[in-house]
């Protein structure tokens, strides 16, 4: 199929291109990018006044399969990705069973091959069953193509084991992707510790639970020279520690999620469990610091931490509800609304956060619009306002922290390997 996209505003930081042009796609690849392409095509998309970005890459996605198909599947989760403009996702391995062996990885790969609508990169756990006791066989999993390891949802408490993990990861040249939380400090907490936890009568999670563990892992990364990625950072202190580490040359990258730069603990006053997230929503001050860190490049990329849960796991007593929000279908629009509309960053920076930087962190040849490379891209209407509605989600779960919010910027087309995998209904 030959596809021409006319007159869109292209933003591609890898090729350092920003401007209006036509794109010709054929055989799944980008064949031409030019001022005016007047060739015959099977389909022409008029993209005047639209923004075209390389397909987004989301490094933190829970697709829940195998095991929790009631929450999400590879099929529904990647449908949701397509709707959100995301063409590559890193699937978290905390499934049932967890991806901690070649056998389980094989099972996952088969489902991906059968059902995935976008590129799904599997990750594997660092420790067996994510128990923090014994390392998985990183070498054999790497041989099967896994290059990111994470115990996401937990952090390894045993410092010696974490050291071993870093030494092994360094040797095998794979990336450790770290959820930093000291559960001895977060305990049974459900919201940020402070005036809101006091006001609501809910147990608080101190920021120390996050940044003290980041501090430890940064020190280990320094000692071992192992590259690490710290995910979903939520507070000022974490930003400061990472900024400092980067200045010292420690090989660390990090991400934050839309809810950490758009919502605060004050949004919990009505006990909305869709906003019960781990790490918890923090304060206005943290939000400001995170926005600034995104602008300055201290935070490398934006991930969704897409965490689908069923209604009966969410619409229950706050303290018993699961942690997490879905995010694939809203992350780009939240970023446009909160970061571009407010003048904090421009489109170039946005494309770095969603495309260039995550590709760089993974070391994959993605995140750009390059001739003769896979045509993965998103066409969006930057001016369109839309309201987040439960019934519009393609994700199997509807637990969005952004329900009923009006956002600006909407994906109109997502193209993956040259095929239109999502088209906004007019």
């Amino acid at each position, binding site marked *: 199929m030959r596809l021409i996209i006319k007159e869109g505003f292209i933003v591609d930081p890898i090729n350092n291109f920003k401007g209006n042009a036509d794109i010709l796609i054929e055989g799944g690849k980008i064949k031409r990018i030019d001022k005016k392409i007047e060739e015959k095509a099977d389909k022409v998309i008029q993209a005047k006044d639209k923004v075209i970005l390389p397909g987004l890459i989301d490094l933190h996605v829970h697709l829940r399969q195998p095991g929790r198909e009631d929450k999400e599947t590879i099929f529904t989760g990647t449908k949701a990705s397509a709707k959100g403009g995301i063409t590559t996702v890193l699937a978290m391995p905390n499934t049932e069973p967890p991806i901690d062996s070649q056998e389980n990885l094989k099972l996952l790969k088969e489902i991906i091959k059968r059902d995935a609508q976008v590129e799904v990169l599997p990750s594997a756990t660092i420790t067996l069953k994510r128990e923090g006791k014994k390392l998985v066989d990183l070498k054999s999993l790497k041989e099967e193509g896994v290059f990111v390891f994470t115990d996401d949802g937990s952090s390894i408490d045993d410092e010696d084991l974490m050291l071993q993990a870093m030494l092994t990861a360094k040797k095998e040249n794979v990336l450790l992707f770290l959820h930093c939380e000291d559960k001895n400090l977060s305990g049974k907490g459900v919201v940020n510790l402070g005036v809101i936890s006091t006001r*609501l009568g809910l147990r*608080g999670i101190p920021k120390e639970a996050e940044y003290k563990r980041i501090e430890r892992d940064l020190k280990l990364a320094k000692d071992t020279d192992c590259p690490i990625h710290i995910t979903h950072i939520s507070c000022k202190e974490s930003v400061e520690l990472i900024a400092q580490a980067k200045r010292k040359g420690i090989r660390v990258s990090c991400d934050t999620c839309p809810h950490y730069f758009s919502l605060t603990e004050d949004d919990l006053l009505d006990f909305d*469990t869709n906003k019960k997230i781990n790490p918890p929503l923090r304060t206005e001050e943290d939000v400001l610091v995170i926005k600034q860190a995104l602008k300055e490049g201290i935070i490398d990329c934006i991930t969704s931490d897409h965490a689908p849960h069923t209604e009966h796991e969410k*619409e229950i007593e706050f303290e018993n509800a699961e942690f997490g929000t879905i995010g694939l279908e809203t992350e780009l629009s939240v970023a446009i609304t909160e970061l571009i509309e407010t003048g904090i960053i421009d489109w170039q920076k946005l494309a770095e956060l969603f495309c260039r930087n995550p590709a760089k962190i993974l070391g994959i040849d993605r995140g750009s619009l390059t001739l003769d490379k896979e045509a993965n891209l998103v066409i969006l209407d930057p001016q369109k306002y839309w309201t987040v509605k439960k019934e519009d989600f393609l994700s199997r779960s509807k637990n969005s922290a952004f329900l009923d919010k009006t956002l600006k910027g909407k994906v109109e087309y997502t193209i993956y390997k040259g095929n239109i995998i999502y088209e906004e209904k007019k």
Partner: protein
Amino acid sequence: MNNKLNWTRKDLLALSELSKEEIELILETASSFKEVSTREIKKVPALRGKTVVNLFYEPSTRTRVSFEIAAKRLSADVINIIADSSSVRKGESLVDTGKNLEALKIDIIVLRHNSSGAAHLLARNVGVSVINAGDGWHEHPTQALLDIFTLKEKFGKIQGLNVTIIGDIAHSRVARSNIWGLTKLKANVCVCAPKELLPQDIEKLGVRATTDIDEALKDADCINVLRMQLERDERSVFPSTLEYFKQYGITQERLKKLKKNILIMHPGPLNRGVEISSEVADGENSLILEQVTNGIAVRMAVLYLVSQAK
């Protein structure tokens, strides 16, 4: 009761959400209902034909009985559901229980629950009225309303009163509701507890917080003495009840150093010899039984107002 303000809320969930005017409307409405309990025939037809369900997931005698009496004096039909004997044990969710009650065409659910936010959860899932009769550590609005009602009766006004709340502030829904209600009506509120029992950033709610009981009591017009919640897991955070009594217990000896007409409140049930001595609890400064009586009028007012919500 022809107020300018119309009551518009289907539910009463938290005093933090109410305006000063709404709180005043409840207090005024309670004033006019108080007389009903002194009549020979203690009943008015205001809620005739309405059904009130007391849905209690925590043991409670006084709050439940108070709501039951209030509803009956308004001529409502009352059903009591105690968590143990209901289908809760079979794993039915709070929302499902609420929807089933709604399907039984009841009008008001009075909910007591051990989880903070439970009343909000129920209220957003049912169309019938929900009255929060205490949710976790969050709020117990009718208790605070009856405390404030009692204070207003005694002092004539709330503005400018110095009220000290003493005890396990961290785990007290009574404290939180009192803080909201009193500060909205412009009282000066001080909370006092051992530091383990003072929650993070409590002073940001507009109160003074101290661990020094003498400092907390020196200008007080009223002391609201909280119950030490001996049944909670967190009880181990403070060494012993005897030690607590020595340091923070309200005794006759302590009262001697304070304002002569200082008034003592307690939400009950009392732990005599833990947070309060018997002499004080039964003494002339004590409002404890008046609080209980006023609880009926306040709950009648709340039941009435939510049923009339426009």
